[in-house]
């Protein structure tokens, strides 16, 4: 059966030109949300009208970090947590490039947290997309800096004693100039936000809630479909909401939306103005 199926010519996928089709099938589990974020990202890139040859994707380590391996553009799968400083060098080395960092919450906010806040502070011209699945998926479901209080993971078997980061608030406090949060259920909004972020100069940050049924869901009585239901029931869209007032409370509500879109001189603009005495 399988052999017959493989001989049937598959119709072309509309994003094939942006995919390394020779690397498909991807590694993501059934029910995982990363693929949805990834395709929103590719659709936004494709429809943005920007020169894709001048676009590059940088990822760190983890399930989401594998995205760089599937995109048919210059793509860099770096070390754990270091996607942002690598991307910073790439962008400074050639300011013509449009550099997108695509990675997970563990990578960007635990091991890479310091790099995140400093890139936001200096308003480095990057678009950072964080797939937030609330745990470390690749290593089998450990507690992350985003794991909700009392949630179960393999390293918090009695429930997480710690409090999670509010990522948009962190980005806001550190100086990001474009900030959004969506879930994989809100693909239109997400795609539009990514499109906007790609065109904005400065440090843009988009958080996307995404289910990890295999590791997080399994331990927290949440099937892939339950996660989506949760996003639908608890998601409250409040564009322009104050990042210090937005919530990620799976009982009360998850605030979604475009929270910030402001203009502030970028790292490169400031460097040219301050340091180049031409």
């Amino acid at each position, binding site marked *: 059966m399988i052999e017959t199926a493989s001989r049937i010519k598959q119709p072309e996928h509309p994003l094939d030109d942006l995919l390394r089709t*020779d690397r498909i099938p991807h590694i993501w589990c059934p029910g995982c949300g990363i693929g949805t974020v990834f395709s929103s990202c590719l659709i936004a890139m494709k429809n943005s009208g920007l020169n894709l040859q001048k676009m590059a994707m940088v990822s760190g380590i983890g399930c989401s970090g594998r995205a760089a391996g599937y995109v*048919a553009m210059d793509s860099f799968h770096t070390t754990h947590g270091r996607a942002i400083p690598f*991307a910073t*060098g790439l*962008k400074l*080395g050639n300011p013509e490039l449009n550099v997108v960092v695509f990675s997970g919450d563990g990578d960007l906010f635990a091991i890479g947290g310091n790099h995140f806040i400093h890139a936001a502070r200096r308003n480095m011209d990057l678009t950072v997309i964080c797939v937030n699945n609330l745990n470390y998926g690749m290593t089998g479901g450990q507690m992350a800096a985003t794991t909700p209080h009392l949630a179960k993971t393999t390293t918090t078997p009695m429930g997480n004693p710690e409090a999670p980061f509010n990522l948009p608030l962190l980005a806001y406090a550190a100086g990001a100039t474009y900030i959004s949060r969506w879930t994989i259920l809100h693909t239109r909004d997400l795609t539009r936000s990514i499109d906007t972020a790609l065109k904005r100069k400065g440090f843009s940050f988009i958080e996307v809630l995404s289910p990890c049924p295999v590791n997080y869901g399994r331990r927290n009585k949440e099937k892939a479909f339950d996660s989506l239901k949760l996003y639908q029931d608890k998601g409250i869209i409040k564009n322009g909401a104050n990042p210090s007032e937005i919530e990620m409370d799976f009982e009360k509500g998850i605030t979604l939306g475009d929270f910030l879109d402001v203009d502030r001189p970028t790292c490169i603009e400031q460097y040219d103005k301050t340091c180049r005495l031409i």
Partner: protein
Amino acid sequence: MKQAVLTGEHFLTGDVACAEGALAAGCLFFGGYPITPATEIAERMSERLPEIGGTFIQMEDEIAAMASILGASWAGKKTMTATSGPGFSLMMENIGLGIVTETPCVVVNVQRAGPSTGLPTQGAQADMMQARWGSHGHYEIIALAPASPQEIFYQTIEAFNLSEKYRIPVLIMSDEIVGHMSERVSIPAEKDIVTVSRTAPKGRKDRFKPFQPGPNGVAPMPAAGQGYNVHITGLTHDEKGYPVMTVEAQEEMMARITGKIRRNLDDIIRTESYRLEDAEIAVISYGVSSRTSLAAVDEARNLGIKAGLLRLITVWPFPEEQIRQLARRVKKMITVEINLGQICLEVQRCAGGRIPVTLVGHAGGTIISPERVVAELKEAVSS
């Protein structure tokens, strides 16, 4: 725009001479983080790079500094960072990424005494084994050891040339003494400085493989944005750059990244012999210790001791053949270095038990005096 090459006679510290060497080599990006005794390199670069069209950035830590120079290298620039022991430890992670992704860049370690915070303002040569094996996994690395401000100027150019030619991070193992001493540095005319740049790819962009070796075992390297759509990963990968999780792929990749160095030892390794022709005792040294060793050899010769010096300019890959041959000619070897025996172990290995190899070293914080080396030479002839 100002000049990248400051042709003329100067009085410079080793750190500043290193920065000028980088600029003369074509470095246009420096990602740094302050640390004694390497800070002056970053300071000089922060002043000089923007005026010649380059970019300096002070990153949030040495991990980020190292990551940034890899990123900028893939943007097509010649890149460098500089640090000392504690920062060198933090850079190890991304030095490994640089090795496996075959990314040219230069890392300067102005060594100070460790372990840990150690003696921040006092020199040592105790990171030599860390330079060789500090990042996890098995690999080859290139490391040079400068003995003076003038030499670090030239070695920095050489480091860039080797890194570009072999697509590998090259380490300059300086030390606080060389870094902070001021001496005369002659900078030649720009036309007299030989610089090497990575080979650009040719042929169809869609068929290009970023890890398919050329004739010298090294693959040409495009920059991001040129249309090659390269995929670069720290995972074990094939010639296309795609991850392949097999024993065979690992073996093939390792053969490539180690082979390009192992097969070109003659091109990479440089040593200098001094009064070795008729020597019975050979002093083996490198960096600042080779200067004190030189004085000791002259002094010993005055005393009628047939001493000579083999100065290691390239420390890694280790000049095994040079040491082996020397071990057949002399009766004893003395290794002089500011640590408690690191390169000495390599010398012993290469001497293969044929002759005695002793160490003149100390725990770090100052140079090794020529008197101590002379005393060891006297001891060697009397025993």
